């Protein structure tokens, strides 16, 4: 079967797939290969966690979904349509995007930050206002206290909640999260993971979540995609990671258990 035919078949057979990668590669102009022949699908309502070490290609994968990057080979499809055929602006407004805390606009209040996409979409200001209050409540921030604050006046955990609220603002079907909790202390991090998980059960969004933290992956993932050197070495439910014999999968699985004080017996 030709590759083209294969792609067609996928479209027809699996229309419930919100995101699909078909033999996707991404190569820098200088010839360095960041992603090699990547294949994956994300179903509606599913949370796929891309797990891997720093520099493994997780973030690149994510940027191919909202067309911050275009694949140099293969095809990325969102809702059945190749990203190259999407208007990038329209595509991105259908996809919520959360990056590490730095992504908030320092010159805007929380109201301004959370309301960015609705404003771009031309919502009425009253509707934006009530939506911002609804979202702040959803992520556990009291709107009365927070709407007119600036990002610098918040703690790291609060900022991250705002980041999530901002991504949800225009009710996009897909949300991308790039190490959203990476810079937080372990306790705040754990609280947010739990809350995020409850949120996800309520909202049923299609999510792609990038992390290098295997515990986080286990808390949040429907499926885990393990990325190493630009290749997908494992794609399946968390239990598969524990059973795998792949050395990279073993290395990450081991991290789950190793937390003993120095000097105590293994």
């Amino acid at each position: 079967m030709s590759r083209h035919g294969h792609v067609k078949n996928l479209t027809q057979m699996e229309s419930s797939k919100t995101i699909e990668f078909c033999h996707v590669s991404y190569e820098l102009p200088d010839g360095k290969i960041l992603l090699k022949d990547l294949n994956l699908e994300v179903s509606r309502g599913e949370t796929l966690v891309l797990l891997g070490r720093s520099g493994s290609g997780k973030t690149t994968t994510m940027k191919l979904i909202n067309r911050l990057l275009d694949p140099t080979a293969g095809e990325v499809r969102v809702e059945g349509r190749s990203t190259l055929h999407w208007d990038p602006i329209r595509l991105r407004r259908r996809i919520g995007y959360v990056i590490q805390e730095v992504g908030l606009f320092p010159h805007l209040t929380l109201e301004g930050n959370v309301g960015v996409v609705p404003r771009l979409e031309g919502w009425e200001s009253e509707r934006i206002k009530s939506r911002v209050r609804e979202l702040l409540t959803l992520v556990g921030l009291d709107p009365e206290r927070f709407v007119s604050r600036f990002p610098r006046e918040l703690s790291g955990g609060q900022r991250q909640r705002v980041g999530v609220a901002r991504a949800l603002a225009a009710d996009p079907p897909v949300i991308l999260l790039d190490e959203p909790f990476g810079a937080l202390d372990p306790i705040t991090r754990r609280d947010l993971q739990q809350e995020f998980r409850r949120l996800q059960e309520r909202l049923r969004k299609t999510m792609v979540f990038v992390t290098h933290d295997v515990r986080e992956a286990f808390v949040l993932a429907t499926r885990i995609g393990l990325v190493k050197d630009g290749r997908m070495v494992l794609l399946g439910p968390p239990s598969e990671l524990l059973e795998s014999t792949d050395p990279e999968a073993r290395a990450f699985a081991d991290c789950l258990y190793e937390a003993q004080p120095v000097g105590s017996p293994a």
Partner: protein
Amino acid sequence: MSLLDFLVRNQREVLELILEHLFLVFISTGIAVLIGVPLGILLTRRPGLSKPVLGFANVMQTVPSLALFGFLIPLNLYLFHVRLVGGIGARTAIVALVLYSLLPIIRNTFIGINTVDPAIREAGRGMGMTDRQLLFQVELPLALGVIIAGVRVATVICVGTATIAAAIDAGGLGRYIFRGLRMNDNVLILAGAVPAAFIALAADVLLGSLEKAIRAGAGVRRRANKIVGASIAGVAVVAVAGVIFFYPAAGTDRVAVGSKDFTEQIILGELLAQSIEAKPGLKVARRFDLGGTLAHEALVAGEIDIYVEYTGTALLAILKRPLPKDGTEVYSSVKEEYERRFDAVWTEPLGFENTFAILVRGEDARRLGLKTVSDAAKFSAQWRAGFGQDFMSRADGYRGFARTYGFKFQEIREMDLSLTYRALAERQVDLIAGNSTDGLITRYGLVQLQDDRRYFPPYDAVPVVRQALLERHPEIRAVMQDLRGLLSVEEMRRLNYQVDGEQRQARAVVREFLLAKGKLK
């Protein structure tokens, strides 16, 4: 008279000059912002352009202002019927000031936008902002503090440079500075420099606090945005008003009388202006105080119609010709070449020469019977001489002079020309080379020795007129003929002294003189 006395006594004029100055600065920085910010933004979108554009702006900053004026005056750039560049006056000054203040604005816009945290930019793009939305909603607001810092630097540069604008009749506090330099009057210099320094400081503090408010962000952010919006709108309004003000529709037929930037020239400009005004139906616009060779350039560009030039200066400095030995020969050769090259006519000589005058004390001249420069050469071995830097360095200066007459001084003191007269009177030196028309010659009772070997080229003062003016108003020719031989060198000295020494207005001095000569009624 102390500076404070002067400022109080002349408060109206001081206020007027300050307003002129502020006006120049406002319009120039306003236009520079309107050009520089979009250009800086363009550079962030087309990084390849950044080197040539920033390089150009950099070079503009290093061009000396008088050279830049000299380059701009002959230009004729029109947009529809509006002359954008060229000529003398505020228009050209503003173009020059804009060129000077562009660099910090372009550079800070470019840097301000480029130093926005890439993660923030990516968040904006990832949320589906178009390039324009990203620019106006994220990049510009975040770069605003840095951009304002650039505007602040540009404004301060502009306040300083605007003082030079007085050299091309653009007004402002530079008028006092130039007048003070010319008359060797420190109070006048300070009367221009001190208010200019205060304006610069005030602009610096005001824009500095705006910048700080913006950088502090947080609570004052919204208010700061409003202030910035309001001030940009305000500057734009002033700029538009200024453009309308400075580009009046052509139509009023006035004879534009020019002058160079020293006292004698202003007196002569007044002399021409009042003589022309005395004719019924003729109106005059005074464009005085043009520095360097700007008066000549303004005449060629048609910005002024008439001014007084000196034959020797025209030959050596403008036409750059070697010297013939005969005075009438110089007159006829510059006359011929001006008609051919510049469509300008040398009219009748006014009767005096402004040349180097070899001067001694009156008592020495009487005691030793000195009449000519040759007479004095005999005594030079026991004498000390005082010469200005100009005389020591120029082609028709000291070296040839000493060789021609065989001077060998005991000592030569090089000092500022204006100080040599006093040094001679106070017996610090025994012979100086001054200006033949300087009022101080009469004041100190000095005697000019005759240049019997005709070493110095003739510097006859002659009104030079554009051919086009004579065609438009043939009666001007008769006015010029009437001025022929009107002023002896002694009379010119007296008029110079009345303005420089007695601090009288050139306009009043000239009026009195013309009345006395029966030229005015």
